[in-house]
């Protein structure tokens, strides 16, 4: 059989990057759709917070709360924090709890009258170790009904991340951005 000249039309697939906005938006929608399927896995994934073999942090955020147990549940269920210690006061309120996540700690307690109770909402930044980990946290947050104040995006300073507000009114910036400690690196 003679060759078919129309075979010359053969067009191999060449990858083509679509609009960045379209790509990011589609990724968010896929994460939202897949969240119910992924959520089960997230509960039992130990690799999210294992690199704690570093020196104890020398700065810790302490968050007095109107309802410490509600805050602890939110941090544990949605962000994968783990409870290191929890001490109750005689009246059953939380006197002190240390929650840890990767290399850092957050102290949570029920607010007491006096100078140590006079705090307001803060912003807490978490540095995940990969885009994939951030995606999983985002899916988990969506699935858990967390208040999202910043949709998943790639910020111009290079962080892949999103923002939440917790039940106490604090803001959480969760992304891949992890600035070093110490003076600015020499360039």
């Amino acid at each position, binding site marked *: 059989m003679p060759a078919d*000249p129309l075979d010359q*039309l053969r067009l191999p*697939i060449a990858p083509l990057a679509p609009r960045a906005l379209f790509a990011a938006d*589609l990724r968010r929608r*896929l994460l939202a759709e897949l969240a119910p*399927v992924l959520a089960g896995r997230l509960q039992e994934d130990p690799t999210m917070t294992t690199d704690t073999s570093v020196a104890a942090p020398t700065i810790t955020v302490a968050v007095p709360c109107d309802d410490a147990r509600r805050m602890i549940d939110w941090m544990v269920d949605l962000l994968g924090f783990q409870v290191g210690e929890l001490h109750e006061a005689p009246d059953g309120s939380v006197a002190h709890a240390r929650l840890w996540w990767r290399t850092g700690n957050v102290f949570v307690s029920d607010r007491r009258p006096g100078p140590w109770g006079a705090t307001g909402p803060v912003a807490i930044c978490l540095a995940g170790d990969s885009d994939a980990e951030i995606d999983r946290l985002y899916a988990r947050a969506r699935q858990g009904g967390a208040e999202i104040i910043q949709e998943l995006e790639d910020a111009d300073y290079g962080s892949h991340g999103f923002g939440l507000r917790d039940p106490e009114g604090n803001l959480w910036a969760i992304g891949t951005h992890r600035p070093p400690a110490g003076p600015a690196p020499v360039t």
Partner: protein
Amino acid sequence: MDAEAKTAQVAAEQLLDLYPRALPVVYGFLCSRCGDTALAEDLTAETFFDAVRAVKANTSGEITIAWLIVVARRRLVDHWRHQAVEDRHLQRVGEATPDSVDPWDDHLDVVRTRAALDRVGPHHRAALTLRYLDGLPVAEVAENLGRGLHATEALLQRARRALRVVYVEGGTDAG
């Protein structure tokens, strides 16, 4: 955690991990076949949502780029099928006689021929794209179009004649 849920989780993670590499391939494929970036974006999104549905229903098997292209091709064919339904009210342009010589028997102007593809009717475009741009054997073209083998061969013959008409006369065909 039951086995089914576990399988779905693994497939979901595969899809998410593959997304950055797979997206430009699916989008590039659709752009080159339909020539319209807005349409390519829509079909790309539909392709990935089809993948999500398959993951949730545990019908996807292993998620690969090749599998996503199969899904994308199905979306493309569906689009042309719907377009053909909408175009049905248009009058047919005159067809070439069966024994006319193909203008590309001597020399094929690839650019001009691919541009002519943009102007043939959706059913013909679908058949010619799968057979010649994608290089699928006729049996696979038939499977993709949901038609029998003989019906597809006949469609390809009509599609080639329609392509010849628009190529030579620079008009459009309503097939």
